């Protein structure tokens, strides 16, 4: 595939190329909705079956840290949107600044997640390892709580994996933007990584109430 400037040879115009890339990204995100959807369905059905144990297990999660992480991730979405804006508005100097801010916030999120995971490790709430929900809880309660935590780790783990990929993409963008590659005319990569980043934010926006909030009042 030969390339002229930013235009790959199989496209006729830059516009066609950008159009294709954006469409491809959106389609990929549609795929991702269904990918997480399988987990959401598994969670919903099991929660309906074991509302009591799921509520109890949910309450062992740290609400403060969960809320903090929600705020951090939303803030990172803002800085990401600003990075896209800088590129579109042609403010080349600002792009790396906002990218670095996004990176920092993304890393903070993953750090907080690591702290939460560690707490679960200490409490023996990691499925697959020796698991004890509460001292003296029966085998059945244990099993159902383990189911909750399997889903908790499955959903947040998959989400965290997406965050890690996102951090990698941001690092690549940062490198490219420092080289001055992105301009008001050509900024599709930033825009598309932005779409991805916001999508990951949206997944968390749903994980937060489902895992941390529902039935907390009980």
């Amino acid at each position, binding site marked *: 595939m030969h390339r002229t400037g930013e235009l790959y040879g199989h496209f006729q115009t830059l516009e066609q190329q950008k159009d294709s890339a954006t469409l491809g990204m959106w389609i990929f995100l*549609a795929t991702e909705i269904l990918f997480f959807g399988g987990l959401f369905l598994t969670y919903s059905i099991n929660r309906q079956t074991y509302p009591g144990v799921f509520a109890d297990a949910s309450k062992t999660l740290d609400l403060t840290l969960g809320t903090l992480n929600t*705020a951090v991730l939303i*803030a990172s979405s803002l800085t990401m*949107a600003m990075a896209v804006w800088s590129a*579109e508005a042609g403010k080349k100097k600002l792009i790396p600044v906002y990218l670095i801010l996004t990176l920092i916030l993304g890393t903070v999120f993953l750090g907080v997640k690591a702290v939460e995971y560690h707490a679960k490790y200490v409490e023996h709430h990691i499925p697959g390892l020796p698991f004890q929900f509460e001292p003296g809880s029966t085998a059945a309660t244990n099993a159902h709580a383990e189911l909750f935590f399997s889903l908790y780790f499955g959903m947040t783990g998959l989400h965290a994996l997406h965050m890690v990929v996102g951090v990698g993409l941001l690092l690549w963008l940062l490198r490219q933007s420092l080289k001055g590659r992105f301009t008001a005319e050509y900024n599709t990569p930033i825009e598309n990584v932005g779409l991805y980043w*916001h999508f990951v934010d949206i997944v968390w926006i749903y994980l937060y109430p489902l895992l941390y909030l*529902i039935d907390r009042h009980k």
Partner: protein
Amino acid sequence: MSEHSEHIVSPKIYLIIFASLMILTATTAYAATVDLDGYFKGLNVIVALVIATCKASLVVLFFMHAYYSTKRTKLIIICGVFWLAIMLFLTMSDYATRS
């Protein structure tokens, strides 16, 4: 080839959206500690999910520029959500209607 109308959203709008998202986050965190199920069974769940959907919509529409984008993009978003709804709704309706 649909013409891509480049619409640059101003940072002011981003800040407004960000502030709304933060307020909604605080609201949902607070609402979770109040027993709303007393008014109507399952109200806590509904409130939490409605707020989450509002937040998600704000992110999609403004941070992701869906509000300014082509019909084609909107169609893809709707399809993604609709297919998720098919899966959730039809499966749950099986569980809900078992005798």
